[in-house]
């Protein structure tokens, strides 16, 4: 079974490809949705096309599916229209599948399920990464606010932090927001560091 993955994110496509290979599929190709990707796809004559639901190029792909003579049989999306939970899972995960009509659905279902799992795993990874990044930049902002307080008010580092925290609590805000406000104010007043 020839599987083509169309994805802008090289990393996610690789994560999916690895999973498919581990599951025993070996005819896998990754095509980024740029330039003449449609012509490339036609030459490849895939049995299954997996695509990021968030890719704007889905419209271009579907247009090809409706006019292509190179692809002998029409392609339908999703394995089994009646399987609502599978469709829901695929949409939630952000993956769409185009399957050559006539391919037995028992053969395709594991591919789609695997794609859903891998897309979900990738999304989790991405979220964790984003959170880690946010935490890092939050810490930098708080550090900067602390040093402003230390130099302007002559506070020790623990006292500067305590002041930030109690202001945040009193205002019902996050410490990082109070810190950011302080930095902005300090910049405006010309007392920034």
């Amino acid at each position, binding site marked *: 079974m020839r599987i083509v993955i169309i994805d802008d994110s090289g990393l996610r496509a690789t994560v999916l490809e690895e999973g498919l290979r581990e599951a025993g599929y070996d005819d896998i190709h990754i095509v980024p949705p740029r*330039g*003449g990707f449609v012509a490339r796809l036609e030459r490849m004559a895939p049995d299954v096309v997996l695509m990021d*639901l*968030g*890719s*704007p*190029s*889905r*419209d*271009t*792909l*579907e*247009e090809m*599916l*409706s006019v292509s003579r190179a692809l002998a049989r029409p392609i*339908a*999306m999703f394995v089994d229209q009646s399987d*609502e939970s599978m*469709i*829901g899972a695929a*949409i939630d995960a952000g993956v*769409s599948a185009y399957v050559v009509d006539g391919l037995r659905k028992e053969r395709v279902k594991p591919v789609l399920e695997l794609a859903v799992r891998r897309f979900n795993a990738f999304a989790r990874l991405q979220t964790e990464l984003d959170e880690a990044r946010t935490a890092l930049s939050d810490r930098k902002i708080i550090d900067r606010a602390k040093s402003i307080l230390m130099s302007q008010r002559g506070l020790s580092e623990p006292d500067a932090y305590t002041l930030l925290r109690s202001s945040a609590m009193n205002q019902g805000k996050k410490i990082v927001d109070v810190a950011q406000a302080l930095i902005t104010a300090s910049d405006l007043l010309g007392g920034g560091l």
Partner: protein
Amino acid sequence: MTTALRIAYLPLTDSAVLAVAREKGFAEEEGITLDLVRTTSWATLRDRLAFGQVQAAHMLAPLAIAVTLGLSQQPAPLSAPYKLNVNGNMLVMAKEFAQALDPDVAARLDDPLGTAHDFAAAIGLWKRKPVIGVVHRFSSHSLMSRYWLASAGVDPDRDVLLRVVPPSLTVEAMRAGEIDGFIAGEPWGSAAVDAGLAEAVAIGERIWQRGVEKVLAFRTPWLEENPHVVDGLIRALARAAAWCDEPANHEALAHLLSQPHFVDQPADLIQRALSGRITARADMPSLDMPDFMLFSREATPFPWRSQALWLYSQMVRWKMVEHTPENAAKAGAVFRPDIFRRALAESNVPIPGASMKVEGAVATPLAVGSKRGELTLGPDRFFDGRVFDPERIEDFLASF
């Protein structure tokens, strides 16, 4: 009690009414919490609607008809009780291509018939079959540019290549030389003009003065089961649309739409369509086009069944669907003036008494019968002077 509603949209200037209904509190006043789901392809928007991930969608009117007729990947019966805008499209072509057209851009845009003939001649001079990006097969963009090209004897399936390019990728595709021009909703035409890649060749509003564009589409069973929510939403949209049409609000609206979670393009690009001040070529002063994109006035949101049938007639003409009485009935029934009337019955929005009209027959603003108040219909002529009688689709098709 509030109801949460999820509505999918594409980041385009004509999603304005939805954005305003949420951000200016019009939906909240009707007890509706709007969750606007940003989507980048019509295919994904359609899937989200068809599989119930969202309750409604900002949809290309011809796509709503195609999905209902089973012509698209996910067939589903859809209903459109509200038009989110009319007009707002611009066909732009690479400067080198436009050289073969009237160099006076204003005159070129004012005379679509003459320009179509110049365009036909330019095709022969071009280095290859011109590749024109359209946003979707089932879009007013595609149907309108086909209608326009064919008026000069151009066969859009033979003499040019219409290639589907999503709106957000049009400018990049121009830059990469993958397409020679495109027709898309704003702000993309303006973005290509600003980037010095293209100039305006035709304006939607000059091809059909009141061209149907986006509709608010629901799955029909859901629409039937939730009349109170649907009515509340339509009332909120009607007020939001009036706000959007108000010139004093255009600057604020452009800023709202320019935000990253909406259109994510510069506010001054977005404002051109809203204010009807169009830059047709980067080195030219802007042109006044007060009807460039409309949201509210002259009963813009009213879903005339005859408009759905005009779109259907063009889909038949280009062999996208076979004409049968059943198909025509289904296509016409996608537009739901009955729901529009029900939702706005108690409001002060003037509502047309009829559900169909002869399209293309109004040359100057016309006062017509309305349930309430004065209702003026704006001019709705086609550039070639044809009229479309929805009762006589076969005769209309035979005239081409």
